[in-house]
């Protein structure tokens, strides 16, 4: 009984996120796994992740590295014979994993996504500063290795020190919208 209640709760949580509801109709055919360019890098394949979620293995699912290797290439989504939006399901697991504080510790993708989102909320993604900040905060050695690539981009006028800005009124409008969204407490 305990497992069933736990099971229902976790599946319900996933279903409450747009695109997540497909988890209920999966037939475990494995087409998503076979179509995924990164399935071999994942500790659990996409179809396995669905089976585990339905078995109520919340902690194991949310601390998996699998969804963080999703490239959002949507191959699984277009091939799923049940019409499940598998890519959205992966995104749903990512955000649940962040909410629950269960993020897989050996991938830095969540850190990158968070920083990306931070800039999005300011209205613009400044490529140079986003990359610099990310590398310095996660792996300064890689920042060093990136210098030649960055130099190539700079030399060809493809990295700007200056970043685009919204007008003050546009920026305030965006802030007000996002503040309201935050007060509504997410999608669930």
């Amino acid at each position, binding site marked *: 009984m305990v497992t069933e209640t736990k099971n229902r709760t976790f599946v319900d949580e996933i279903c409450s*996120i*747009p*695109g997540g509801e497909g988890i209920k109709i999966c037939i475990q055919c494995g087409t998503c796994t076979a179509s995924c*360019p*990164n399935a071999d*890098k994942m500790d659990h394949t996409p179809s396995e992740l669905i089976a585990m979620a339905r078995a109520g293995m919340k902690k194991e699912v949310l601390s998996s590295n699998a*969804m963080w*290797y999703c*490239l*959002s*290439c*949507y*191959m699984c989504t*277009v091939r799923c014979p049940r019409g499940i*939006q598998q*890519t959205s399901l992966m*995104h749903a697991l*990512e*955000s649940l994993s*962040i909410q629950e504080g269960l993020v897989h510790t050996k*991938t*830095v*993708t969540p*850190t*990158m*996504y*968070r920083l*990306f*989102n931070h800039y*999005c909320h300011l*209205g*613009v*993604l400044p*490529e140079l500063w986003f*990359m610099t900040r*990310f590398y310095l905060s996660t792996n300064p050695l890689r920042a060093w290795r990136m210098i*030649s*690539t960055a130099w*190539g*981009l700079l030399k*060809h*006028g*493809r*990295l700007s020190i*200056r*970043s*685009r800005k*919204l007008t003050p*009124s*546009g920026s305030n*409008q*965006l802030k*007000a*919208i*996002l*503040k*309201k*969204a935050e007060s*509504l407490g997410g*999608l669930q």
Partner: protein
Amino acid sequence: MKYYTYFPGCSCSSEGGARAYDWSTQAISKVLDFELKELHDWNCCGSTPSGSVDELGAFCLAARDLALAEKAGLDMVTPCSACYVIFNRTNAYLKQYPKLKEKVDESLAAGDLKYNGTVRVRHTLDITVNDIGYEAIKEKVTKPLEGLKIAPYYGCQMVRPGFGFDHPETPQSLEKLIASIGGEATRFPLKTRCCGGSLIISEEDIAFDLIHKLLESASSNGADCIVTVCPLCQTNLDAYQSRVNKKFKTDYRLPVFFFTQLMGLAFGLPEKELGIMKSIVSAKKVLAKYA
């Protein structure tokens, strides 16, 4: 003259890494008689990462742009595949999930905005081949790209999950476009496979594997160069090509163009106007015979 609202996205903005895509798009629009009017005061669409961190916030980011675009009443065109998928997904989800729409509406209202869901979002390639058309393009060609073997690379998000303009796995629009500007599209079995996307930043080795496969596939099918439709695909294949070569001990030197750049060249526009020199892998050798 055809008119559109234009959403360049961060990469194709005047401070972005793919500004050559923007330049060449603007340049061909003059030849083909369509006008792209940039959306005033747009914000980042949120791309894929935002939705994985804060879904409601991400839908609101996209919805603000859509609400601003709705006022002009025109189709909104973007050259970026990530922006394209985000806006179309937002449109679809706002119709499909009333609870989501309610929350997005309430958030937009805090910024005195309202979105009725009427903006049709299209990719630059879509309007080029479907609104302008292959025949009209062919008519403007003054320097056909004869003998140039081009691998047509679609990547993922322009064709998948699919918003109705080409096939999700075996699209054909780029091949037809290449033919209409006098080039030769090579066979390219991996044409809709992923370039690694934003994992190039966090999981470099994984992205390098994918990039290597694409370069190998293009090269072994005889391509002189690759043509792309997405700023991120272009950056991954172009700016990281030398590091992929180093890792896999290969020596690929495949210039990676935006489709708008190749169109501009075929229309006889100056390379400078098309931002050809902004490519990291030099296009000089490949283009020498067309100069």
